[in-house]
């Protein structure tokens, strides 16, 4: 009677079963760090009197949040990370030419020094974001303690209407559960709508589990998962499923037949309204990208909306593929050309506009419509700017009109 989260934690702690609330010490399969948190993690490991990572094949650093470097401070940090990777002889090191960390490295029990590590739950893994000191312990010893989370089930039944995307499902979930509604819980997404979704769309759901306070988000694996993982898994993958009598703290039911496109309004991820209630709001910048919505199907949805059209003259559009794999595919499929022909700026893969530390910074008074995951005050620049979150379809439809627009009417 266990959930996926409980089973993975039990198998990695050498226990038959575990129960919510219990603290276990688990063996880590893989640990990754973006540059911004990597140096701090290694300082922590050295302070623990540990000189070498526990397994050079299971620890990686990625230069993704800021790429390429934009000033001397972050250039120096990148340099330091390259030196650490060499000194530690890490088998996998990803420089600025790979993309955002959550696209590339699925394993069963993963920790990442980035809060959106929960994205990997879309592959049926237990993946959670940790800070740098925890990461220092994880990379130094291969182990970390976890409090076994309760599981909240989000059951989504029905068929999404055209131009309604998985982003709308997770924004609706945020509205219903609230920004602390799943604190310390695992979120498990089930139902016919989830089964119909691509793995990329499921990644959008799991990615935002943290925005509800979640420790991880999980979709149980199926044939699509297995196909997606072929050639990507480095250390083996054993599908794990929740038992029929697994215990959930609660179940939220969402009817996707009736679901409208959703928009999270400033300055909270759970301040969510149907697009029809915010339509007409003028925007200055549209961002299509991030670990939430920077995959091929996201760029494709945006390109469909913008094909043969020009973006509104008062709007700038920044489109950023989440990985080089996506970048390459979008290029060969003509998606990048469609976006560029419409007037979008297409950037190299990185975290881009999302976190306000790379490029696309907002000036005071400006409004951003963004496919990313957080709209905290000041998140993308000035504390007097405003960030609205939505799906790629809504973002692209709005880029053309210059105001927040229902993509079903575009």
């Amino acid at each position, binding site marked *: 009677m266990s959930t996926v989260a409980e089973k993975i934690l039990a198998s990695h702690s050498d226990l038959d079963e575990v129960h919510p609330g219990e*603290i276990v*010490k688990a063996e880590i399969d893989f640990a990754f760090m973006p540059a*911004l*948190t990597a*140096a*701090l993690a290694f*300082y*922590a490991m050295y*302070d*623990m*009197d540990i000189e070498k990572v526990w397994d050079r094949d299971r620890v990686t650093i990625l230069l993704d*949040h*800021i790429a390429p470097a934009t*000033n001397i*401070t*972050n250039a120096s*940090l990148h340099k*330091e990370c390259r030196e650490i990777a060499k000194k530690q002889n890490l088998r996998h090191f990803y420089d600025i030419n790979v993309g955002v960390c959550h696209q590339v490295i699925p394993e069963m029990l993963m920790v*990442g*020094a*980035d*809060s959106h*590590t929960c994205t990997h739950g879309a592959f049926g893994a237990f993946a959670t*974001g*940790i*800070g*740098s*000191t*925890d990461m*220092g*312990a994880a990379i*130094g*010893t291969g*182990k970390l*303690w976890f409090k076994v989370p309760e599981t909240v089930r989000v059951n989504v039944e029905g068929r999404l209407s055209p131009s309604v995307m998985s982003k709308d499902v997770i924004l609706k979930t945020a509205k219903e559960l609230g*920004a*602390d509604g799943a*604190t*310390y819980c695992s979120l498990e997404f089930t139902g016919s709508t989830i089964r119909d979704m691509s793995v990329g769309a499921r990644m959008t759901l799991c990615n935002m589990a*943290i925005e509800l*306070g979640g*420790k991880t988000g999980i979709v149980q694996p199926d044939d699509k998962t297995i196909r997606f993982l072929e050639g990507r898994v480095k250390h083996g993958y054993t599908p794990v499923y929740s038992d029929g009598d697994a215990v959930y703290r609660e179940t939220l039911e969402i009817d996707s037949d009736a679901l409208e496109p959703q928009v999270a309004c400033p300055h*909270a991820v759970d301040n969510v309204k149907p697009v029809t209630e915010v339509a007409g709001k003028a925007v200055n910048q549209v961002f299509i990208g991030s670990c939430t919505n920077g995959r091929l199907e996201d760029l494709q949805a945006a390109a469909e909306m913008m094909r043969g059209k020009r973006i509104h003259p008062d709007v700038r559009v920044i489109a950023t593929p989440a990985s080089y794999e996506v970048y390459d595919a979008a290029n060969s499929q003509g998606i990048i050309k469609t976006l560029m022909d419409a007037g979008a700026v297409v950037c190299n893969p990185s975290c881009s506009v999302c*976190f*306000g*530390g790379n490029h696309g910074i907002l000036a005071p008074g400006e409004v951003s419509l963004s496919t990313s995951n*957080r709209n*905290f*005050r*000041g*998140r993308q620049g000035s*504390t007097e700017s405003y960030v609205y979150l939505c799906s790629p379809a809504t973002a692209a439809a709005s880029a053309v009109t210059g105001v927040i627009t229902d993509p079903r009417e575009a």
Partner: protein
Amino acid sequence: MIRGKAWNYGDDVNTDFILPGIYLELTDPDEMGRHAMEGIDPEFAENVQQGDVVIGGRNFGLGSSREHAPIALKHSGVSAVIAEGFARIFYRNATNLGLPALECPHVSKEVETGDTVEVDLAKGKIVVNGEKELDFVPVPEFMMEILEDGGLREYIKKNRDKW
């Protein structure tokens, strides 16, 4: 004994408030400390005194896994964060740094900015302005051991054999 002036920022104090994204490229803790709380109160870092206590309402520390946030608070002089609830990663990160993150119901209604707050970790008590007493939720034993060692670095050094 933890003793200092309170700074109350209410509900939903996110990690971008505590340390904005532009400072994530920093690696020097003292420099992070000079920008603590800049996203919500640009004057905090200049005026905070050693020992002061940050107070919050629900979901303190939501958002990013950036340990920069509790590092900035600690190196600005803050000796504890007391809130009605914490986001999970911030809570772990603060504890791992030896910065107590204490859960106390109604604290953001009971304590005002400028009040003097004393914390007795062992007794589980907070005293406001020398008179009003509040109980905080007991820190789990394992977390308490980490705090007593001054953080996870020291804890692992001492307990490597049983880790």
